């Protein structure tokens, strides 16, 4: 019993948590920015999938994982641009548009797997992946427990941490941050001050596209070496939950993503330790239950942006 526990709660548990939470963290920051500008974004699952696919495709074509990363970002942003066009310019209800984008993403990736490689399932492998660029921060990297988890990591893990800190700073101290906050709280006020609400909302969606693109790239060309169909497996939605549970705050997003990742990592280790031999499904269901609990428990305190999910037009000529 004791040594079984000792076997579960190891430094590796923390590393696994980071690996599992990285894509969710990135996507949830994207969701946060997007919703702060007033656009509800449930299309992240699809955007992430597109990112993963194009990262693998470009990476394989060029042989460089870094170009692959750019490809993933480009794919994610291009796809999110489509979403922005639908939600902001065409005034389609945001949740609806998001649902459509997800359908589209699955169709696209599967179709182009066939067109590009004439195979389904797994795309051809990259010779080098971003994992080959694992980098240990001097000094910090050699810290006991958190060292390997936070400071001896692969590029995109660092990017996710940077994204969290950067956005915490941007929202608190910069013109951009102020614009983002205002547009989601009182769009009309923002517009009457001579700034364009649609423009900032496009920015928000594109930012989520960028971050989800990176998240997708993590899945395909950092954590593994090729794209497999449906490899996001619901992470986009978990990210949405993480954003809500995190109260639309960068740090909150990170913490809740981290928590979900931790639950998952723990679950895997408890299973393999053979500590409890109950149906494995009981473990597998835990992250979902945890998410529900988190949403139910934490959402009370946090307040969503007043105008999130609401369409914006100046002259209500529709009515």
């Amino acid at each position, binding site marked *: 019993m004791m040594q079984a526990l000792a076997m579960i709660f190891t430094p590796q548990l923390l590393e696994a948590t980071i690996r599992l939470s990285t894509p969710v963290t990135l996507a949830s920051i994207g969701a946060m920015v997007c919703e702060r500008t007033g656009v509800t974004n449930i299309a992240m699952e699809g955007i992430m999938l597109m990112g993963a696919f194009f990262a693998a495709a470009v990476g394989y074509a060029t042989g460089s994982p870094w170009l692959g990363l750019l490809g993933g970002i480009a794919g994610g942003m291009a796809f999110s641009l489509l979403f922005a066009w639908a939600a902001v310019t065409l005034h389609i209800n945001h949740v609806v548009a998001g649902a459509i984008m997800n359908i589209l993403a699955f169709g696209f990736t599967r179709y182009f797997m066939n067109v590009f490689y004439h195979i389904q399932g797994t795309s051809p492998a990259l010779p080098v992946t971003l994992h080959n660029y694992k980098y240990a921060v001097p000094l910090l990297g050699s810290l006991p427990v958190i060292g390997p988890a936070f400071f001896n990591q692969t590029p995109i893990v660092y990017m996710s941490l940077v994204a969290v800190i950067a956005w915490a700073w941007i929202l608190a101290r910069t013109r951009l941050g102020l614009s983002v906050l205002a547009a989601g709280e009182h769009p009309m006020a923002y517009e009457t001050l001579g700034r364009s609400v649609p423009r900032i909302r496009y920015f928000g969606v594109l930012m989520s596209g960028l971050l989800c693109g990176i998240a997708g790239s993590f899945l395909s060309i950092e954590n*593994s070496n090729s794209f497999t169909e449906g490899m996001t497996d619901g992470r986009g939605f978990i990210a949405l939950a993480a954003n809500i549970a995190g109260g639309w705050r960068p740090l909150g997003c990170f913490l809740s993503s981290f928590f979900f990742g931790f639950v998952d990592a723990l679950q895997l280790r408890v299973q393999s330790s053979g500590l409890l031999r109950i149906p494995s499904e009981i473990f597998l269901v835990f992250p979902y239950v945890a998410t529900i609990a988190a949403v139910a428990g934490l959402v009370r305190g946090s307040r969503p942006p007043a105008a999130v999910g609401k369409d914006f037009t100046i002259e209500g000529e529709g009515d």
Partner: protein
Amino acid sequence: MKRALVLAIAIAVVLTMSVEAQSAKPLVAMTTDTNGLGDGSFNDGVYAGLKRAEAEGLCTVKVVEAHAMTDYVPNLSGLAEDGAKLVFGVGALMIEQIQEAAKGHPNTYFAGIDHYYGGEIPPNLIGISYREQEAGYLAGIVAGYMTSKYSKNSPLLNGKNVIGAVLGMDIPPVERYLAGYIAGAKSVNPTVDVRYIVTGTFADRAKGKEASIALIDQGADIVMQIAGLTGMGVLDAARERHVFAIGADVDQNAAAPEYVLTSALKGTTISAYKAIKALSDGTLKGGQNIVYGLAEDAIDIAPFHQFDKIVPAEVKDAVAKAKRDIISGKIKVPVSLAELGIKK
């Protein structure tokens, strides 16, 4: 409505004609289950068999991926109507549908992969199933030896005497693999610690990777994947953590040559190929269930490829002996964890 209908029919007639353009070689077709091609499992396995036969000039090939379970019947009978001489239905979920299709198209042979039919079987239908546990058993023997007794033979081994397995969903074929794997390992190394994780999905590669890293962190130096696409993550983990992986269903060595020790082969490829061969020889016999196992040499483990030199003779002999004993029935390989006294 009506006009659109007429139009559609007109067009359809035209193109069905164009499709009917017959070639000399017999048409052999398959319909996948809803997982489609690229499942890294039996769909790909059977498809490989068809490709091989095609390469050898035995037939021309056509494949359809089912989108929903409702598609099975139209796909199966449709392929027959397209003039296929032999139609493979892959996946246990179309077990009734294929029997219906067989009754409806007596001039076409149907072969159901992972099917075992009870009662009276149509003369043009063949049920093909496998004893995955035997493949698992052989893989288990290799793993059981290498992880402890011969852990010096490779820098990838750590001698902690722990091996692991990553499962997709907890369904019977998977469990049969696992049961065989555990039994095989224990048979040559009673003290070996076999750990396994059920990921609950056949599609989440990242999760498969984390699962096997969890096992590796707990000392496992050989991890078998029984998880379809999730299993790709096991290979990722092996590549990253420098341990051995064991593939499943098809020889996965190509996916990570430096790390895939061997693969437990479920002879979907060979069995499909055999059926086609028999078809072209005119010896194909329907109305029966064929359970492929070692005896039918459709179950095996893949060659060790570049690891051939580090796998000592004792291991190879043990594998060979196990094969003989299983065939002769001296060894009865368990099919469920329950038989091993492990409760889920």
